[in-house]
């Protein structure tokens, strides 16, 4: 399997930052009350992750061990601040909703984790793909959780998508059902925890099922400690 394929698989499923590494939970739990918010923060994280991964990978040769973390944090903080400024300038409505969570991306462990674990050890093109896939994986979980909570708590999907994507996105809004009494719990933070728990449980269940199905009979050649000497 090529490195790119591995990276894709790792980022989207096997080593998904939100579901497996359980990183970046703070923004994840806070902003996933609706799909729009989730998508917004997911995209922001994705851009920061790609940017920081590429940058870190490019400068990795020059950064000595001791100041690695400060430099990485600085790189990430720069990207986050730039994105924050850009959002403030061009998607103001969304910025108002996500505003307080954007700076949290700086300390999103998913990002520094990738910088540390992957980008600082690999070439920039691999690092970029890693960032892309991890970011997509993270965003995907955000969107799924956001969808889950929005449906349960509000009966809609893509409510307010126009804030993020422009006027045309108003058509995206789907009203699944009208709730007289929304399930408030789904929208409140505890709902995020419970929903996250269920998503992780389902993922583990799928993995277990797959492991059962694909139980290949691989044989491992036994090493002889005492080869004829």
């Amino acid at each position, binding site marked *: 399997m090529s490195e790119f394929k591995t990276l894709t698989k790792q980022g989207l499923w096997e080593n998904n930052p939100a579901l497996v590494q359980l990183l970046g939970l703070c923004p994840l739990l806070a902003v996933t009350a609706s799909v729009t918010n989730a998508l917004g923060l997911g995209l922001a994280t994705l851009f920061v992750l790609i940017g920081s991964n590429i940058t870190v990978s490019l400068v990795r040769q020059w950064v000595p061990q001791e100041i690695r973390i400060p430099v990485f944090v600085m790189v990430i903080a720069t990207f986050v601040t730039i994105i924050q400024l850009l959002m403030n300038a061009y998607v103001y409505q969304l910025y108002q909703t996500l505003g307080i969570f954007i700076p949290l991306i700086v300390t999103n462990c998913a990002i520094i984790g990738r910088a540390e674990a992957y980008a600082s050890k690999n070439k920039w093109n691999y690092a970029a793909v890693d960032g892309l896939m991890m970011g997509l994986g993270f965003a995907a979980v955000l969107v799924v959780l956001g969808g889950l909570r929005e449906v349960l708590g509000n009966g809609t999907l893509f409510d307010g998508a126009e804030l993020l994507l422009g006027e045309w996105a108003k058509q995206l809004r789907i009203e699944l059902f009208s709730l007289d009494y929304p399930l408030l719990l789904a929208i409140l933070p505890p709902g995020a925890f419970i929903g996250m728990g269920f998503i992780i449980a389902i993922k583990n269940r799928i993995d277990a099922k797959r492991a059962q199905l694909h139980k290949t009979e691989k044989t491992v050649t036994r090493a002889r400690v005492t080869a004829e*000497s």
Partner: protein
Amino acid sequence: MQDIKQFVESGQIARFPGGIHPPERKQPASEQPLSRVPYAAELILPLRQHIGLSGQCTVAVGERVLKGQPLTDAALHQGLPLHAPTSGTVKAIEQRPMSHASGLPEQAIIISPDGEDEWRERHPLVDYQQHDKAELLDIIQAAGVAGLGGAGFPTSQKLAQQKPVSYLIINGVECEPYICADDRLMREYAQAIVLGMRILAYITGADTTLLAIEDNKPEAIESMRVAIAEYDDIELRVVPTKYPSGGEKQLIQLLTGHEVPSKQLPIEMGIIMQNVGTAFAVKEAVIDDKPLIERVVTLTGECIEHPGNVWAPLGTPVDALLDYAGFKPEKDQRVIMGGPMMGFTLPITAVPVVKTTNCILVPSKQELPPPGDEMACIRCGACAEVCPASLQPQQLQWLAKAKDYPALEENNLFDCIECGACAFVCPSEIPLVHYYRQAKSQIRNQAREQAKAELAKQRFEARQARLEREKEERLERHRKAAEARKQMQQQQAEEAPQQEASHDGKSSAVAAAIARAKAKKAAQEGGNAAAEQPTGSQPEEKSKKSAAVAAAIERAKAKKAAQQAASESEAGADRSAGSEASDEATAQPRPAQDKSAAVAAAIARAKKKKQARDQEDKQ
């Protein structure tokens, strides 16, 4: 120490935490006088009756033995000998199921009694005080006396501790339901027990002897009170009925108000404890020269017609005892050796009475209903309430199920005395003690494996070091051989130009080429025969034969290396390049060249692989 003294002198009885009051059910067995079981058709005497090594068998199959004759010698580490319970012939020495919860087979001496009950020669002691302690200890050991209350630890070994003893505690508590063997013994043999106590006190040098009896045995208390009346230094302590007051640690707490520190023995507190049955056996061994060949066993339970206590010769099969008392088994009958709380079930009754067998209990389903389905723990805490060791049984249970052994040890699993109080009260009917026993044995096994792994590691490392050393020595030999050859060739090469100095340049070049070829051939031969013909420069030459073997191995190796090298095209190129090298290079011994070729091939392979990967990266 001072505290203990104060407490004991005040005559108080302390209390221990937890404990339970299961139905006692000592009657009707306790009301029947002791009777004697006739000798069974065969007596089964397992060689190992206690923890530790078993002694060596001193009799042979077919041999006639007399009553009280030793059948094994005392093993190492103060083991105990085994004695013939009656006269008869040794029928067999074979594997028989043990009187153990596992039912594992164990080597046993089988004796068929001849009915004559003929004693060996006996040497009764008139006045034990005439003999010193060491002598008495020897007698006790030779008589095979073991603790009759619990684990069957050799009594002589327990008494031989070189520590000052202030209190000798004689345990007549017998707190488990049903069991009344000690009760009966105290009622009928009070004088003998007191004499045994005197001997024990004499040996240990204890200042005071404390005799503890539970308050549900008024007759035994009375008869012992009369028997000890004349001794000032024996005090009777009546303890309230509560299970497990008879546990060593609990009884010490009751009588002294102090706990035995964890992982220490009571002797560290100046206390030694013996069972009343043991005291009786000591008296018989010392005064009557009667080794431990029989003991009192309670036969009880609703599935027995005539419950009671019997003198049972050691080795009597349980089925013989049950026949004697009238056994009416029901469906799924349980036969329990020991009491209902700590005893174990016997899968078959063809197992013998051993030194620690105090009770055979055959309950009906009504009196001791078999456990229902195990339900989940609801953390009700009933178990913690009754635990006499103040453990948290529900916690231990979870950890045991999770096999979290470090946490179990941290939660003091090994302070559990397996009394079964927790499982008795558990509303979810969880067999708690069973889980602890499994966990304990697994922890012990792991420790054993750990030790074994450590040993294996040391041996493996030693072996690696040895192999490394041998390899270096071999290389050293090869190097020396190669040097010797090189010298030889140089000599030849020097001689050749001298011989052909008279020829002209052209012919000299041809000659040189021939010489080179010759040298090469010679070198090859030399290489092949390197081990075969070590030059005189190797004084530590081994025998010709071993050298030949080594040479054969070398040849095989060289061949293999050559095959490997040939299979690689790059290696082939390298080799051809090598052959174009100077004379000196070609003059190197062949195997070495092959080896270097192989190495070169391996490097080439690695390079190629890397290239391939780089290319892939670029793509």
